[in-house]
């Protein structure tokens, strides 16, 4: 027994030594993950506490689920949850359709030069921050100087106070999102289309398939795996909005919150106001639902088509 234990220990030691160098290669990353991912994960206990700066996370008093019940009883809970999920869903649907259509149309462009120019222009927004893009929306939507109102007035309409009325913002935000992401996504889809064996199209053509039929029966099926992978990630992020889009484009205007406030902007404001416990509770609610969503989506995908599952 004793010998056995010693032997085992020596063997463990040997494997540790053999793996030691590889372990040191992972060490910097592990330390960073520990500090900036796993410590904050442990820090979610602050959602069950009344946070005091002098006491820190560990020594602040426990208050059970008070932070959660406060949030779920407030009018904000439904509003920000609805906005976050509704926008994510709209972005998935509109974004995917637009990008797929653009990719399919790009495939029809014969001139490689023109194709390259169109692609380059479309991914321009990816190189810019939402702050820069908010200058553009400001230049269009500014009620006094903006180009948007100039056009409306020139066409005989009356100028619109964009930043005072909520009804325009679902469209403005969706357009901004699609404008920002369509180039990237369509390039990914286009790359998938380039991988299709040209013989498939030739065979379809010999069988008398029209261009539209070729698209439907050859191109679209080729895109399904990529669409699936990109959208599992997106569905997992259904509860997470793009903070930059929702903070910079509506410029944090309070009157627009009913349609522009999402969980992430709400959490940011809560943090700014020092409302630590309650805001952490909202964040934990968001992360937990996100975790469930991604696991469920992945399980469903794994059942339908295992090769497209993420894990």
């Amino acid at each position, binding site marked *: 027994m004793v010998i056995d234990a010693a032997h085992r220990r020596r063997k463990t030691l040997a494997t540790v030594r053999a793996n030691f*160098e*590889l372990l040191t*290669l*992972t060490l*910097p*990353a*592990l330390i960073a*993950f520990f*500090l*900036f991912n796993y*410590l*904050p994960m442990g*820090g*979610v206990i602050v959602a069950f506490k009344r*946070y005091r700066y002098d006491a820190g*996370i560990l020594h602040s008093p426990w208050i059970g689920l008070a932070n959660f019940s406060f949030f779920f009883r407030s009018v904000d809970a439904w509003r920000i949850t609805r906005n976050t999920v509704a926008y994510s869903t709209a972005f998935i649907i509109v974004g995917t359709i637009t990008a797929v259509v*653009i990719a399919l149309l*790009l495939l*029809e*462009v014969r001139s490689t030069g023109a194709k390259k120019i*169109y*692609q380059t*222009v*479309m*991914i*321009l927004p*990816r190189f810019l*921050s939402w*702050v*820069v893009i*908010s200058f*553009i929306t*400001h*230049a*269009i939507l500014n009620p*006094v*100087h*903006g*180009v948007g109102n*100039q056009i409306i007035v020139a066409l005989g309409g009356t100028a619109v106070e964009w930043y005072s009325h909520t009804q325009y913002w679902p469209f403005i935000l969706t357009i901004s999102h699609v*404008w920002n992401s369509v*180039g*990237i996504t369509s*390039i990914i889809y286009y*790359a*998938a289309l380039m991988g299709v064996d040209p013989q498939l199209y030739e065979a379809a053509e010999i069988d008398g398939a029209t261009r539209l039929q070729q698209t439907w029966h050859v191109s679209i099926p080729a895109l399904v795996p990529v669409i699936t*992978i990109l959208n599992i990630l997106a569905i*997992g992020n259904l509860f997470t909005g793009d903070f930059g889009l929702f903070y*910079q484009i509506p*410029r944090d205007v309070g009157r627009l919150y009913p349609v522009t406030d999402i969980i992430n902007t709400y*959490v*940011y404001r*809560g*943090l700014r106001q020092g409302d*630590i416990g309650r805001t952490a509770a909202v*964040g934990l609610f968001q992360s*937990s639902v*996100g*975790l469930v969503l991604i696991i469920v989506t992945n399980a469903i995908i794994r059942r339908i088509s295992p090769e497209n599952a993420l*894990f």
Partner: protein
Amino acid sequence: MSGRQSHASSTLLHLFFIAFSLAFIVPFLLVLSISFSHEETIRTLGYRLIPPEFTLDAYRYAFANPGRIQDAYIVTTLQSALGTFLSIVVMATCGYALSRRSFRYRGPITFIVFFTMLFSGGLVPLYIVVTQYLRLGNSFWVYIFPRLVSAFPIIIFRTFFQSIPESLPESAKIDGASEWTIFFRIIVPLSKPVVATLSLFGLIDRWNDWFTTLIYVRDTRLYTLQFLLQRILREAQFLRAIATELPLGMDIGQHDLPTESLRFAMLIIAAGPMLVVFPFFQKHFAKGLTIGAVKG
């Protein structure tokens, strides 16, 4: 795709794409035009895509007191370069170890990395850890460390390194090379495309960072360009303060400065270089996107 394509449908296709491309180009021309507009034009006619006359007034003001923009350029350049470099080294070394099938802790460490993609503690606990425990708030290092690692690039690195035959590092090991040497001497030279692409992505994200400043930084000398721009757009008083180098609050008259065009001139000065550099990266970028689409 072979087959017929009538002349008319080809023209229609190009017309569509030209119109679509204009939706991306015109907004940039618009902000450029505003920066060259007379303040008087803006006041009477509004922002114009083609202003009746061009002026360099706004740029003269912007360059008369360039202090803040200079600071922001230095901070942004340093944090993007150093942050990207360190982050790529740390993530690539980790990805390499995880690509080695003989590595005993491969499974658990991969899980530790992967799990961060599924769950996070959220902004608030991270904020407390960074500011209260690690004391990184309002310092330059807050740009470097909290974003040092993320799971997705590590998995991309791992997947890429797995395509390198394992016999290569194994034979080097027999020759007495350490894993670190193998990584830097053998693996990195073979992996230039993936390193270049992920560095480019990291560089762009860091260059465009305003969120870190918004959350963690108060000192105006530590502002990134993007955050400086955010305040310039939102606060006329802040714009006047930095353009005149007067302390905030000691506001000079509103009409002494071309406030409207100055804002956009600042935008062009701060974001312009990115737009000029951008076309040179485009090829790499499109390639990298398809690397990113490969599942881990």
